[in-house]
């Protein structure tokens, strides 16, 4: 019987079935972060249980770490206890930790693929809803809570109900300055924040094939914002080239054998999906959110929608969003003054994201009164960006250039906006109060965020760059 790629990975990893009918899905790589792991370490200690495979388990400090140069455990006082508990828990349980000062420290979803820890056809879990980011290299990843994190530590499996399958086919060719973030925001706008609930989503089609691996990760990262259980892209030659030479990938003849296997990782031609969705990306313009959930999105030339123009089920949320965002229906998005711009997070903090933003910023200045920040997704990304001189481009334009971490995405490290500020952000959630009490977040791509920092208002990057030519 023809099978989807999801079926192939799931079936391979099914180590057993529990009496309650749940599949025991083996987790090849488990990556922890300090905000949640301490609960699980304490639980294991209480229950006198041991970590089954510390050698397949890794840990990072990302959610609470400060971004100021020269940071340490105490720079963000509300992170200190978490950072130290993480260190202790990893030491006691024999887990390799990429600590706050480690050259490979960074956001788990950035670090795991860039070190080659996650591989095509492998399973991956993180106690974080954005775990599926690594689907960009063809891994099947699940976000989980703290109890499940403890469960994986003790057993190395997750006890899961098999999700349904969905294929999102992205056709066409992206226009200039339009990228994976814009595609994902458009998809979420169409499907809604629960549109992929209960589904493992395979992203396919010409537009996906043309995307660099980092862009595929951006796409998969946002899968949870439409409620998806997991999201991934079948690996291809670009994936293997991207992974080649990374520290944790298989070496020598094992590499050759792995690649030969990975080439088989695709959905069968006649495999049936529970749901199929198609989006033509050719005419897509840069996208921006206007509301307080990631489905409240329009093109950059668009306006805040009138409630009548929305489906009835979306009108109440829109009314509440207008009030929070301080926006009236009919207001054009472009031209809205901004106070803050944030470029970073597991969504858009990899080197190509920073390159795109730097290309917009180069030779320009951040508009007066705008606080603009760039926070690389990992210490490795930061080093690579600095080697390419990107830090100078950003600094000279007036951006803050930070140490890597989650930073303003959830504000868990104290990086937050001030009440009432309007912020263009490359992150994944424009929820109320997420970037600070009463902060008004507009989600956008790195190119749009960079252009908005320069213009001092929400800006169409294409017009900004055309104006310069």
């Amino acid at each position, binding site marked *: 019987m023809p099978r989807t790629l999801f079926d192939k990975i799931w079936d391979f990893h099914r180590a057993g079935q529990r009496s*309650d009918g749940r599949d025991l899905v083996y987790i090849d790589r488990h990556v922890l972060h300090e905000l949640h792991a301490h609960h699980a370490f304490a639980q294991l200690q209480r229950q006198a249980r041991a970590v089954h495979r510390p050698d397949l388990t890794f840990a990072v400090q990302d959610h609470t770490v400060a971004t100021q140069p020269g940071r340490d455990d105490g720079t963000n006082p509300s992170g200190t206890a978490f950072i130290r508990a993480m260190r202790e828990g990893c030491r006691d349980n024999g887990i390799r930790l990429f600590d706050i000062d480690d050259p490979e420290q960074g956001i788990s979803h950035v670090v795991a693929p860039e070190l080659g820890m996650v591989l095509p056809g492998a399973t991956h879990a993180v106690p974080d809803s954005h775990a599926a980011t690594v689907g960009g290299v063809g891994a099947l990843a699940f976000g989980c809570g703290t109890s499940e994190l*403890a469960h994986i530590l003790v057993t190395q499996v997750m006890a899961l109900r098999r999700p349904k399958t969905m294929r999102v086919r992205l056709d066409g060719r992206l226009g200039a300055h339009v990228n994976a973030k814009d595609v994902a925001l458009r998809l979420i706008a169409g499907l809604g924040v629960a549109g992929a609930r209960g589904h493992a989503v395979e992203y396919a089609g010409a537009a996906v094939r043309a995307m660099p691996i980092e862009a595929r990760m951006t796409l998969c990262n946002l899968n949870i914002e439409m409620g998806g259980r997991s999201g991934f892209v079948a690996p291809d030659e670009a994936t293997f080239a991207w992974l080649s030479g990374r520290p944790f990938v298989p070496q020598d003849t094992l590499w050759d054998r792995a690649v030969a296997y990975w080439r088989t990782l695709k959905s069968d031609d006649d495999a049936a999906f529970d749901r199929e969705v198609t989006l033509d990306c050719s005419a897509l313009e840069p996208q921006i959110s206007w509301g307080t959930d990631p489905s409240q999105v329009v093109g950059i030339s668009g306006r805040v929608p009138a409630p009548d123009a929305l489906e009835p089920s979306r009108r109440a949320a829109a009314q509440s969003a207008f009030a929070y965002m301080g926006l009236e229906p009919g207001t054009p998005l472009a031209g809205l003054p901004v106070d803050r711009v944030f470029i970073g997070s597991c969504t858009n903090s990899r080197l190509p994201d920073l390159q795109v933003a730097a290309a917009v910023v180069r030779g320009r200045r951040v508009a007066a009164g705008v606080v603009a920040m760039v926070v690389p997704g990992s210490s490795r990304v930061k080093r690579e960006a600095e080697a390419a001189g990107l830090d100078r481009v950003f600094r000279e334009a007036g951006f803050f250039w930070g140490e890597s971490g989650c930073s303003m995405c959830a504000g868990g490290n*104290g990086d937050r906006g001030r009440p009432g500020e309007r912020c263009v952000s490359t992150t994944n959630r424009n929820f109320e109060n997420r970037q600070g009490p009463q902060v008004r977040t507009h989600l956008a791509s790195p190119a749009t965020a960079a252009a908005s920092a320069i213009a001092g208002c929400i800006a169409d990057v294409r017009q900004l760059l055309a104006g310069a030519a």
Partner: protein
Amino acid sequence: MQPFVSHTGIAAPLLTDDINTDQIAPILHSRSLKEDYKAMLFHRARRRRDGSEDPDFVLNKPQFRAAGILVTGHNFGAGSSRESAVWSMLANDIRVIVAKSFADIYRENCLQNGLLPVVLGGHDADAFIARVVAVDGATPFTVDLVTQRISGPGGPDIAFEIAAAERTRLIEGLDDIGLTLKHMDDIARWERQAAVAQPWLQQATDSRR
């Protein structure tokens, strides 16, 4: 895990869709690992901009302060996987959430902690919501997992569905890790097979070391 058999309590209507875990359990920048989950629940939604309590927020209304059942719309618990969004319910003695649907990770977190997630379909949900709104906290409802029924003022009992195995796990308060530990032989067998079929999965070695 604390078992769930039956709960009788006031039902509070919070009738919006897509309530996310940032709303339920915002990050409060505690300096301690022992966070105040009771204070965390809807911390910002409960307050006005000046920090004072918002009397219009449902859980601040006198008749719902001791609510044990939260009644809500679609996709409850969207967003972040933080389990504090479940612990903060339990810290406030909320033992049941009745929703039109739940976000996947949130529902799993409920099951892990003995917080009963009840899904009601279209007609049943609307009928139950109407009764909850009409009684306005004056009389409690009972949610019984043994009989899989909701009973209370304003109409007949409403039956709800839940997977038999999940029901048993909740009623008996079974330890989820304990259930899986019975399968460690299966897991060891899988590891031996994977080490042959895809050996790179069973080793995560830093080639620089």
